């Protein structure tokens, strides 16, 4: 009975979650994305059999499929390590009520299985089992094969829960796991050590000896029990809310900035904001990825011959941080915006501090990515033009339109799959920053004068830099008009 009530409450919580009350457009876009991925999975599941036979004509497709399963488990574990949490806080309202602790723990563990991500893989596995495993082995084997996979996925689910409770969720661990996995793939590739062979042996044996299905079952039961007994002893308020109150770390800001008076103070504040809060922190972690963007595109001749594509990459490399962080430039401070408004400093300095920060990161991003010229010297020119365009044009767009965000941002939530505080304006503002440079460049490039296109982009950037003062005055004027609306919005938490 108690479980029924608990799950009913959970159901209400999901239905009334603020996600649904968000912008309809965003929900539709997200829905399309999810549908797209699910369809891809479905096609993969249906055609995996044919694809494998095409690539490995002499081998049994099921055995081949099995040989990838250990890698699948590895990738699944990494994804779970990054994305999965056991929301222990959600039982807080029940702890003081006459409900057995063990019931709550079973509920907590049980509901983590309800997560739809656990079942997304089966959109691949089920069609494959029906089409390929059943015909190559038997119907029973296919059924047990699926049962085994279910238990393996559940096992992963609880294993990660336990590991994260014990060792915390340091990103370093995920990176190490990733490196190990990459090393294994490389060793397989160069026939030094074959995890694929092991994987094939393990998972094919279950098809031959169906009774082996008890092994994943036992493993699953064991890890469930370990989690349960661990949680039962840990379910006290101080433990439950352990991860919410961390000791202050002594990132005392960069004392270098102190000499710049109020601007320096504001920049220091911003740096602390970035390093001490989950959500901005995840954007900081992503910034190096923007820099590596070139490695996806530059090695491929198809992209290298499309100059307009390279403009897109160039804008992204030096401006990725500016666009992703800058989009919320003011919303980041939504939780103390009232404080800023009532304190005695000049908002010109406030914007100057933000400007300096964005410029600094943009310049560093450009300098760090200069070595891309080893792919082709033209990349240097393209990226330099894009860099100037970012610095003179896009930065002003960012500052100007950051004021359109009037939603409170909860800094303590992770940015992964987090759409709290995201509105349509966030997407729309990215468009001109990415498309405009391409639109400006393409006509010149089509008529065979890409150099002039680059000069145009660079010149627009330089003009923007030269007009710094009047543009800033405009931005600040707009701020004084917009501040009431923003403050009003930020108070709606």
């Amino acid at each position, binding site marked *: 009975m108690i479980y029924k009530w608990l799950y009913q409450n959970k159901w209400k919580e999901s239905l009334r979650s603020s996600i649904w009350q968000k912008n309809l457009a965003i929900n539709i876009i997200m829905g399309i994305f999810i549908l797209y991925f699910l369809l891809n999975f479905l096609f993969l599941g249906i055609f995996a059999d044919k694809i494998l036979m095409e690539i490995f004509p002499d081998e049994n497709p099921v055995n081949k499929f099995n040989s990838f399963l250990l890698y699948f488990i590895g990738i699944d574990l990494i994804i779970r390590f990054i994305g999965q949490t056991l929301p222990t806080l959600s039982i807080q309202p029940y702890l003081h009520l006459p409900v057995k602790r063990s019931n709550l723990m079973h509920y907590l563990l049980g509901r983590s299985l309800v997560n739809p991500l656990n079942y997304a893989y089966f959109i691949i596995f089920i069609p494959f089992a029906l089409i390929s495993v059943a015909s190559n082995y038997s119907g029973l084997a296919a059924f047990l094969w699926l049962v085994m996979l279910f238990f393996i996925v559940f096992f992963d689910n609880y294993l990660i829960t336990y590991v994260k409770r014990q060792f915390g969720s340091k990103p370093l661990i995920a990176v190490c796991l990733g490196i190990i996995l990459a090393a294994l793939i490389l060793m397989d590739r160069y026939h030094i050590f074959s995890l694929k062979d092991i994987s094939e042996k393990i998972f094919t044996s279950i098809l031959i000896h169906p009774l082996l299905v008890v092994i994943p079952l036992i493993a699953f039961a064991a890890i469930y029990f370990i989690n349960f007994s661990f949680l039962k002893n840990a379910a006290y308020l101080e433990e439950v809310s352990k991860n919410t109150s961390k000791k202050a770390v002594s990132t005392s800001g960069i004392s270098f900035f102190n000499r710049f008076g109020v601007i320096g103070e504001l920049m220091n*504040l911003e740096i602390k904001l970035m390093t001490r809060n989950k959500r901005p922190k995840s954007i900081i972690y992503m910034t190096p990825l923007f820099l590596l963007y070139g490695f996806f595109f530059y090695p491929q001749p198809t992209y290298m011959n499309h100059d307009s594509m390279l403009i897109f990459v160039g804008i992204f490399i030096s401006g990725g941080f500016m666009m992703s962080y800058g989009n919320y430039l003011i919303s980041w401070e939504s939780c103390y915006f009232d404080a800023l408004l*009532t304190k005695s400093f000049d908002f010109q300095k406030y914007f100057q501090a933000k400007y300096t920060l964005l410029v600094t990161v943009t310049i560093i991003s450009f300098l760090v990515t200069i070595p891309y010229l080893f792919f082709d010297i033209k990349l240097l020119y393209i990226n330099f033009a894009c860099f100037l365009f970012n610095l003179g044009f896009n930065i002003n767009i960012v500052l100007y339109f950051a004021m359109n965000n009037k939603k409170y941002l909860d*800094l303590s939530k992770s940015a992964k799959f987090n759409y709290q505080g995201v509105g349509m304006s966030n997407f729309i503002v990215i468009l001109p920053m990415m498309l405009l440079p391409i639109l400006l460049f393409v006509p010149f490039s089509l008529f065979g004068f890409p150099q002039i296109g680059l000069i145009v982009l660079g010149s627009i950037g330089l003009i923007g830099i030269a007009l710094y003062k009047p543009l800033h005055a405009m931005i600040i004027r707009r701020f004084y008009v917009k501040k009431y609306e923003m403050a009003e919005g930020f108070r709606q938490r």
Partner: protein
Amino acid sequence: MIKVNNLTKIYNGTCVLNISNLSVQKGESFGLVGNNGAGKTTFFRLILDLIRANSGEITSKDINVAGNEGWKHYTGSYLDEAFLIEFLTAEEYFNFIGKLHNMSKGDIAEFLNLHADLFNDEILGQKKYIRDFSKGNQKKIGIIAAMMGNPEVLILDEPFTNLDPSSQIRLKKILRELKAKYDVTMLISSHDLMHVTEVCERIVVLEKGLVVNDLVTNENTLKQLENYFAV
């Protein structure tokens, strides 16, 4: 010091504040009481130019607060947690606010030292962020930070809620001192009639956005207020 002229604030068609005429003299300690929804916080936000009035104006030293920022230099305020920067430690927050008021490190240390009593060794040197402090200690941090930079006007919204009894008594002492020594103009709202009558020499009762009572505090005021609010 602060004058209000025909001020109205309307939310969704309901008038939540309508004050035709009100002025607070320099050095006056002004108490604001009223039930939830009476418009106390709205009034304070309007004084701090955090929201826009639908009509009328508020002047501070005869200059309209809306659109001007001169008042920020001599006005200290603490309304709610939105005035705290939750991911700083208490020291860092005081330093930040102090620097904005051009206080030197020494000034800040000296100032904080004055309030060591109120802090009760629970605020400074704690190595934790403001978001991890208890509600009462967060409030102390906010109130003390509002007093930095020798403000001439101090605006506090329900400063006594969440404070422990000793801290309430200490805070009252601090407020009385501020008035006696520096002639600070204070605007304080409270649900606690006793505290507010102890600290304020004038008390205004708001009800549904209207000023329904404007009293000079004397020994009968508390009784009067209690009678007014009795149901």
